[in-house]
């Protein structure tokens, strides 16, 4: 037993040895009804994990209970559509799918421009269920994929926590991550997005890699390579792994923690992971050609140099000679690497860093250079309040956990510290990356909670022992930290420990309450059906989006082209089954800019653009009646900016008055006559939206609109939903006699 666990790091020896011990001992005491302590612990642990597994799943079902089993938001609709295609047409058709219904007239090669991991996962689950004679609809599978993988993530978190600290930390980590709002925000039922499986894959890869580094086992390294492959297939965030892992290796090399275990783990993981990742069409040769992946390759080469130096040192046995050799080798290796990188970049073989990557490192980059990235709300820098909202007590447990990690520094804790710090930086840069930081924050906080509680309880236990045995020095089993404080003031300490424990449990219960509240109130809205409170506190649902999309589906010709701002592209193709000009896959900035230009031009100019794009219908989202604030008028400045980025005839200041965006009488003439304004406010001047306000009172912006007499020449109103949220206009053919 002891021999088996010897390769494990010395610090965690005490904890890792417990599990084989348990299993062995459980065989002997099988007959006796009374379980031994360790068996009890095992039972307790398994039942806790089981409960956490279920908890993680059911906590994410609020959205199904509140609304219905439906796909949420924007991107999930694309994922759902592709999954449907995959299950209907099979994998090869999916792989080669050329979609002529989006990005008209350019089309989109779906198979080559998506991360297929999510769809394939859902399809496999679907096929497995059908094989087992559970005839479910693919939509149900898609809706429940995210909660299912969130449950799996808790298991990985447990094992990860166990690997870096002990089983207690693992259990706490599992519980914390199961209900952490930062993770729930992206994994409620219906949030069928890449992140749903990607966080699982991310954590799994990290866990397997740390395990490989700890054990030096080729098998674990291979497993982590496959974990990495799954991650690459699921989400573009894999770039985080391929940069964090080399960074971690580099830190280990610098701090003199180079070992054969590390060599095996990294080389195997990198080479196999890279080869596997190349099988994903969307990623292709990026691992050897793009700047973002070059760090990993550099570290790989550095590892070889280290290994070579180790070998030379072993052969040489002459310190002075070796020092000289070391200097020459390291210098020449860095020089060769630098020259290769320089040549590769200069010749264009290695692509420079992409804008998205820059915008991660420099939070202000996107705002200045790539409006299309900056225009997405989830790409905004994170506010402090959202950290508080998403992490709650973890926010201050995190530094405490860091303290414990540094106190017991090992390869594994160095990893989790690096993971935590880098991902927290990225979380500060972009709101959506809170998600990536969540597992690290949960794990580190779990260490803090677990270590604290363990210290406190052992303190309490020591007291009991002390009182029982009468010995004054019974603190042998307790931690060194508690030993220091364990002197004269024993009664105070006991009370203090109890008080602290109560405090910890109070905090944790507050955390649980907060998480439940956030999940049910904030993160379970599908955003396709909007909910509001009526005057009497009753719940009102606005189902305008689906109403509009079904109208399109039923009432327009099958080859009709719909122009809308790109946000709604995926939903129109998935629910309306009609061709769109642009959608949420923002691969062609010029095309989006053309639509932005059409929306911000006057009707005549817009008509020319729409004719050239064969547009039949224009769809706008308008919140002036309901007070829905994320409508097209509020997004309008981004259309102007993106359009102006490509077509300089569109100038942002012309739409502003003294730098202020207005829609009332004081708005700029350009604003009052642009297509978007006209389409949103057409016939709105006749409508009284609020008692005591003049007609044409925009509730989303709280002003009376400036242009109430809107005449449309080239377009005509085709459909407006019951709450005016979606308005659809038909583009008229050119006049007969002119």
């Amino acid at each position, binding site marked *: 037993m002891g021999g088996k666990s010897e390769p494990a790091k010395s610090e965690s020896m005490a904890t890792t040895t417990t599990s084989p011990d348990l299993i062995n001992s459980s065989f002997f005491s099988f007959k006796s009804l009374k379980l031994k302590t360790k068996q009890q612990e095992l039972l307790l642990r398994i039942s806790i994990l089981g409960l956490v597994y279920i908890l993680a799943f059911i906590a994410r079902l609020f959205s199904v209970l509140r609304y219905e089993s439906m796909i949420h938001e924007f991107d999930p609709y694309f994922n759902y559509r592709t999954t449907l295609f995959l299950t209907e047409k099979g994998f*090869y058709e999916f*792989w*080669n799918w*050329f979609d*002529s219904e989006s990005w*008209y*007239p*350019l*089309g989109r*090669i779906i198979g080559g421009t998506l991360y297929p991991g999510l769809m394939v996962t859902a399809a496999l689950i679907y096929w497995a269920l059908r094989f087992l004679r559970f005839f479910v609809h693919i939509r149900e599978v898609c809706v429940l994929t995210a909660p299912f993988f969130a449950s799996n993530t808790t298991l990985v978190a447990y094992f990860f926590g166990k690997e870096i600290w002990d089983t207690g930390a693992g259990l706490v980590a599992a519980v914390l991550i199961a209900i952490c709002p930062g993770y729930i925000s992206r994994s409620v039922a219906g949030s069928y997005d890449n992140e749903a499986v990607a966080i699982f894959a991310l954590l799994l890869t990290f866990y397997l890699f740390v395990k490989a580094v700890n054990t030096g086992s080729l098998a674990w390294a291979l497993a982590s390579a496959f974990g990495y492959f799954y991650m690459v297939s699921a989400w573009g965030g894999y770039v985080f792994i391929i940069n964090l892992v080399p960074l971690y290796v580099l830190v280990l090399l610098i701090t003199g923690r180079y070992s054969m275990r590390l060599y095996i783990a990294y080389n195997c993981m990198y080479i196999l992971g890279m080869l596997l990742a190349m099988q994903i069409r969307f990623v292709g040769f990026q691992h050897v050609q793009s700047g973002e992946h070059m760090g990993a390759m550099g570290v790989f080469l550095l590892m070889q140099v280290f290994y070579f130096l180790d070998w030379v040192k072993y052969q040489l046995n002459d310190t002075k000679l070796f020092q000289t050799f070391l200097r020459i080798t390291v210098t020449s290796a860095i020089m060769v690497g630098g020259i290769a990188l320089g040549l590769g970049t200069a010749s264009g073989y290695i692509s420079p860093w992409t804008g998205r990557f820059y915008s991660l490192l420099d939070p202000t980059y996107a705002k200045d250079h790539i409006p299309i990235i900056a225009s997405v709300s989830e790409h905004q820098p994170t506010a402090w309040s959202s950290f508080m909202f998403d992490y709650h007590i973890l926010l201050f447990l995190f530094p405490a956990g860091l303290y414990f990690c540094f106190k017991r520094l090992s390869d594994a804790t160095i990893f989790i510290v690096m993971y935590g710090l880098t991902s927290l930086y990225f979380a500060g840069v972009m709101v959506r990356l809170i998600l990536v930081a969540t597992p690290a924050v949960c794990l580190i906080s779990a260490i803090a909670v677990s270590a604290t509680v363990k210290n406190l309880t052992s303190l309490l236990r020591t007291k009991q022992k002390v009182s029982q045995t009468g010995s004054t020095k019974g603190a042998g089993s307790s931690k060194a930290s508690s030993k220091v404080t364990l002197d004269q003031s024993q009664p105070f300490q006991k009370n203090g420990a109890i008080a602290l424990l109560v405090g910890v449990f109070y905090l944790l219960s507050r955390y649980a309450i907060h998480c439940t509240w956030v999940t049910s109130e904030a993160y379970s809205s599908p955003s396709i059906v909007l909910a509001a409170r009526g005057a009497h506190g009753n719940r009102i649902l606005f189902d305008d989006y689906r109403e509009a999309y079904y109208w399109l589906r039923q009432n327009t010709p099958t*080859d009709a082209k719909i122009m809308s701002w790109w946000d709604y592209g995926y939903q129109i193709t998935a629910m309306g089954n009609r*061709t769109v000009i642009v959608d949420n896959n923002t691969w062609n900035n010029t095309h989006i800019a053309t639509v932005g230009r059409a929306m911000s031009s006057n009707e005549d100019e817009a008509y020319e653009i729409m004719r*050239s*794009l064969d547009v039949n219908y224009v769809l706008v989202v308008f919140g002036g009646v309901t007070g829905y604030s994320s409508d097209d008028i509020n997004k309008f400045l981004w259309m102007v900016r993106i359009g102006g980025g490509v077509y300089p005839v569109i100038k942002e200041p012309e739409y502003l008055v003294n730098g202020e965006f207005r829609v009332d009488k004081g708005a700029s003439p350009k604003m009052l006559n642009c297509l978007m304004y006209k389409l949103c406010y057409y016939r709105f001047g006749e409508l009284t939206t609020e008692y005591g306000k003049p007609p044409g009172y925009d509730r989303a912006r709280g002003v009376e609109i400036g242009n109430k007499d809107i005449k449309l020449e080239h377009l005509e109103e085709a459909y407006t939903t019951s709450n005016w949220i979606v308005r659809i206009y038909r583009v008229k*053919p*050119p*006049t*007969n*006699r*002119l």
Partner: protein
Amino acid sequence: MMNLSRSVALISLFLLPLLSFSFSVDNPTDRRVLVLLDDLSLKSSHSIFFNNLKSRGFDLDFKLADDSKLALQRYGQYLFDGLIIFAPSTERLGGSLDSKSIADFVDSGRDLILSADTSASDLIRGIATECGVDFDEDSSAMVIDHTSFSVSDVDGDHTLIAADDLVKSDVILGKAKIEAPVLFRGVAHSLNPTNNLVFKVLSASPSAYSANPSSKLSSPPQLTGSAISLVSVMQARNNARVVISGSLQLFSDRLIRSGVQKAGSQNQYEKSGNEQFVTELSKWVFHERGHLKAGSLVHHRVGETDEPAIYRIKDDLEFSVEIYEWSGKSWEPYVANDVQVQFYMMSPYVLKTLSADKKGLFHTSFKVPDVYGVFQFKVEYEKLGYTTLSLSKQIPVRPYRHNEYERFIPTAYPYYGACFTTMAGFFVFSFVYLYHK
């Protein structure tokens, strides 16, 4: 029969308004024509023109323009296929007719001959404006030309123009050349520059101008020279045809019968060109000539017959379309060497001239460009005088599938070699390392 019905279905897409009970797509010539007069005496003074129409089989229905029972449609269906308005001075049309209902009549694909004259009413001007033609605002102005007037002009104010600047189109004015000048006395008009559907059939000479002949010219005339159009035609997007003339006398028996000699010219003609001009023009405007119809666009891969749902880049395809011309009695194969097809995605990637087989079939074959996307086959045929053919058919073009690329390419053989020698070398090395001691 199948083919016919299919082509009918397709044509109906762009000639949809034509599909009413009266004149069918298969027989586009107008049959029933309403003639609105402001004076029934015009019936006899313009009898040659009207009799000519009657002899060609038209059913003319003469009405006074202010007849209170006037109606163009009944129960939502038009009673007439064509409309002749010879009522320049009428201020209000009878019944429920107004300029808008005349415009609707044209928009429904029906044809119109509108003739103004000096002191044309606002109503007539309004209808003309709807069709892209603006008459001189001065109601007493006439076209005056001191160089190309007719010598038979007895008044001496040079308002009887002998115009010979005709549009060069066999389709509009027939194959036989109009030798004698056309006599014209009336009001000038100009074309709306933003309207590209209207064009001049009979233009004034560069020396013409529009002014009141009985008063002295106090300011330079607004309309001068070639900007003046005497007779214009407009073919709407739905192929409804409109003739607008500035002279009612142009159609009159008097000018048709009169001899003509252009000032400064030795050629003296027994008879003016008016009869031939108005006859040929009426043939065109009532779709006896220059009317085309096209069958559906047919395309398929070379060696196949069925139309695919999607093409692959670099596919070879064949394209054909049938085009027929209406001869006045039957559909004849259309013969031309200038019909083109575009393979279009935002701009034409392929532009090919179709070769005709004299049986109405236009055909070509080409290779799909190395670009994927949603393309359109487009036939946009706009030839002076002919009906506009505007056909398109959407077809997506996909890139290669994963298994359609070439498997083994010669340039890659060094890499294959390198790959396999590395594998073999690794195997040998491992074997030697493990078992050779």
